């Protein structure tokens, strides 16, 4: 845990309070960025740090920031949206940050605001996060009272506001353009691209959306420099991340570890191994949309490139662990049902395909499957991947593709036996 920096003060008394934060170098990075760095220097610094977005796609944060039009070229107001919707099943890291160290996020937003010369940031927090929203609200009030936000940030001419907006419970509002629609008061449905958010975002203005955790890393990059940051993690996945571990482990929770830590270390050392003396069957590395991997892949390093090579993805680093009682068909059914429920319904493939996947897997799990359904299932999953406005249909297709790759025989057993062969598997 020695390399942790995001969670250093988690669990300490009053860690969410401004006084506490100030006594631990709080807002020093923001002061330095505004006081001694030009906006483009900050963007360059973040680019050079190799920081990749922690929301799932792993896009270069600095590169994304550099897409924003520069003042002078384009004088429309610019906005930042902070994605705190955290709706990917298996993911609960942003919640911890917002509850335990909200000022770290606010400071990250101020630095981002300075770097992109934004007028304001909107934190879009999932509606179910009532407590984190209250903590954030209190922190925002403190930040305004202390002069860290408002018309003169820390006594400078930089004006920056942060607003908190609570969502109403839709997965799709975590997709960046769905989030913007929702913030504008419309139905949460992703927008077609082009135009892209950096040109046409919130209310048609240049907008950049980043995940909660991403902003927090920026604070430390500014504080300790790129050499330090690049020294943590792997060459192409720099820094730490909060791995959220759930499922059949002894100690579920989140663990801040360098990117590239092996799944074995996370599951067996940090999370205490498989509960109830059972065996590891498989794990979903990065939230429910990533492809599940079998126990044999447990030595994979948890970074973008290694997981891609292993046929999955880092996603949100929300690791879901399944023991040997788990029925993978039932697990797929749970996931497929989720994505069916959460599809916004705009695109044909997603609207119809997610429902078809759910019905198909449900029938196989119920023991009414046919052998040809296995190929059909894969065909349907393949036909909805990469062809829609947003990645939700991909998120629905990937787990099906992954499960069929590694556990096709389990689907076949359901068909042959005409029932689920895992009587002890979890209840739905």
């Amino acid at each position: 845990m020695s390399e942790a920096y995001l969670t250093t003060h988690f669990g300490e008394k009053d860690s969410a309070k401004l006084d506490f934060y100030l006594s631990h170098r709080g807002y020093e990075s923001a002061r330095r960025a505004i006081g001694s760095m030009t906006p483009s220097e900050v963007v360059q610094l973040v680019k050079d740090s190799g920081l990749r977005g922690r929301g799932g796609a792993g896009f270069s944060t600095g590169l994304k920031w550099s897409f924003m039009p520069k003042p002078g070229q384009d004088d429309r107001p610019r906005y930042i949206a902070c994605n705190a919707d955290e709706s990917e099943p298996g993911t609960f890291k942003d919640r911890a940050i917002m509850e335990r160290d909200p000022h770290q996020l606010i400071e990250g937003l101020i630095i981002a605001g300075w770097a992109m010369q934004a007028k304001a940031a909107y934190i879009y927090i999932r509606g179910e996060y009532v407590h984190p929203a209250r903590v954030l609200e209190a922190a925002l009030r403190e930040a305004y009272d202390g002069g860290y936000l408002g018309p003169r940030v820390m006594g400078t001419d930089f004006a920056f506001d942060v607003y908190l907006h609570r969502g109403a419970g839709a997965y799709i509002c975590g997709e960046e353009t769905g989030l913007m629609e929702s913030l504008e008061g419309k139905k949460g449905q992703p927008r077609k691209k082009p135009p892209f958010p950096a040109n046409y975002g919130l209310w048609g203005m240049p907008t950049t959306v980043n995940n909660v955790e991403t902003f927090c890393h920026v604070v430390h990059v500014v504080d300790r420099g790129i050499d330090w940051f690049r020294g943590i993690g792997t060459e192409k996945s720099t820094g730490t991340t909060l791995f959220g571990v759930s499922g059949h482990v002894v100690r579920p929770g989140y663990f801040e570890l360098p990117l590239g830590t092996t799944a074995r270390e996370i599951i067996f050392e940090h999370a205490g191994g498989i509960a109830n003396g059972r065996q590891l069957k498989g794990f979903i590395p990065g939230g429910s949309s990533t492809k599940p991997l079998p126990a044999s892949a447990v030595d994979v390093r948890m970074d973008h490139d290694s997981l891609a090579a292993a046929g999955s993805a880092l996603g949100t680093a929300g690791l879901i662990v399944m023991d040997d009682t788990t029925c993978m068909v039932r697990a797929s059914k749970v996931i497929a049902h989720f994505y069916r429920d959460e599809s916004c319904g705009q695109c044909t493939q997603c609207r119809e395909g997610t429902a078809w996947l759910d019905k198909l897997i449900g029938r196989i799990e119920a023991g009414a499957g046919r052998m040809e359904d296995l190929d059909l299932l894969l065909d349907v999953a393949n036909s909805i991947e990469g062809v829609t406005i947003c990645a939700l249909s991909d998120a629905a297709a990937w787990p099906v593709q992954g499960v069929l790759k590694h556990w096709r025989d389990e689907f076949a057993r359901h068909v042959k036996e005409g029932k689920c062969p895992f009587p002890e598997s979890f209840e739905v």
Partner: protein
Amino acid sequence: MPKFTIDGKEIVVEPGTTILQAAKAHGIRIPYFCWHPKLSIDGSCRMCQVEVEKMPKLQIACNTPVLEGMVVNTQTPKVEDARRAVMELLLINHPLDCPICDQAGECKLQNYCFDYGMRHSRYVEPKRLLSKRVDIGPRVLLDEERCILCRRCVRFCREVSKTGELTVHNRGDHSVIATFPGQKLDNRYSICTCDICPVGALTGKDFRFKVRVWFLKETPSVCTGCANGCNINVAVYKDRIYRYLPRRNDAVNDTWMCDDGRLSYGHVQAEDRIRAARMIEAPGQPAAEVPLDMAVDATAAALRQARDNDGASALAAVASARATNEDLFVFTKFVRGVLGVERSAMVVPAWEPDGFLIQAEKAPNAAGARAMGVGGEDEARAILDRCERGEVNALIVLGADLLLAGEREKVLTALRKVPTIVCLDTHESELSRIAHFVLPACTFAEKDGTMTNVKGRVQRIRPAIRALGDALPEWEILGRLAARMGQPLPSGEPREILKELAGEVPAFARVTPESVGTQGVTLTVVA
């Protein structure tokens, strides 16, 4: 001007053109459901996907702007597979009730099935059951099961009618088109949603179950409901009109028309049409139907007598804003040359305009009439005053809009003082009932000619059905009258009349059958 390659063809387009627009303009067929030339881009049906070199994923042609050097392929196996997948997914829950669906025959889903559909469905799960008959508005019904959620109707109500009644309720595969609570799809253009619905989800209550569309023969024409002159196709089966469909004309109506205009087709073949000539053979007798020739002879004799006995000052003529330019040209010549009356007048019916298509003048050709020097309502009232004073011995009237010139009883009282009223009209009215000579005229759907809309655009109408009964176009009736009165007018088909009109009336100088074409031509502004 970006140059790009599509299916091996090099094409230069305007900057900002999308792949779909470029393909359409060059005869390359890309299938689509949600895109519509007059609505914003939705990009959700995913049917128009094409392969763009150097882009890893398929791109939707409707929302991808053409860039310099782009290489697009619309027919690759990958593209065909993607289209087949979209079709399969759209069809898994579709009721496939084409045999009882009004859209059959003009259904995009059905048409694309022939190109991309599978013969057998791989879908064995229960189909989604939804409502088949949602009374979504006074003129439109919704079948939720047939809907493919392209949202053209939603965008239409937001962007064109600007009434915004429609939305998509729920999410994912529970999505359904619906009105907002407490609202109905009740705007003045609501039936346009049925036109743009690519499937049979929205159908017009009026047209529903009347006729299979493949029996309909369409004749390009112009709506006569108001002065806008929306371009239409008149759809006919067995000499009966079943509907008007808007026909695209970006200078007039884009692809839209109002519900009032659309439903006015029923008027053409209504019960109260005048099918035969009528005349009062002896004073005090009721009017009796007579052969047209006999009525024309008698009318000509009566007019000649009035003219010869009492002079032109005892005659009066009222034109109609519903007649064609050709009718009106012949009418003005008849009035001036045969009757010796210098000016005619007209009354143009009016209603509330809406700032979009619906114009204040509720007749198709007031502008044409004015361009030919027909006077307005004031002059029409002056004629009625003369009638009231007993100064008019013979009155020739096109149509019955004169009745709108004032309080109905007063108008009729004045008219009753005229010893000879000649009425050329299509429908029965209080005027035709008191007229001494009633000559049956064709509606716009039975004749050839042109109308001039509110913006001075001259547009062609064509016969879509046979003339009802003995009805003839006004220009022809007037020509016969003139001939009988011994002063034949230069006559001929409407094409010939139009040429003469163009030669005589400067505003019409550049109007020729060719320049009118299918999209019309505007009048010359005459200082």
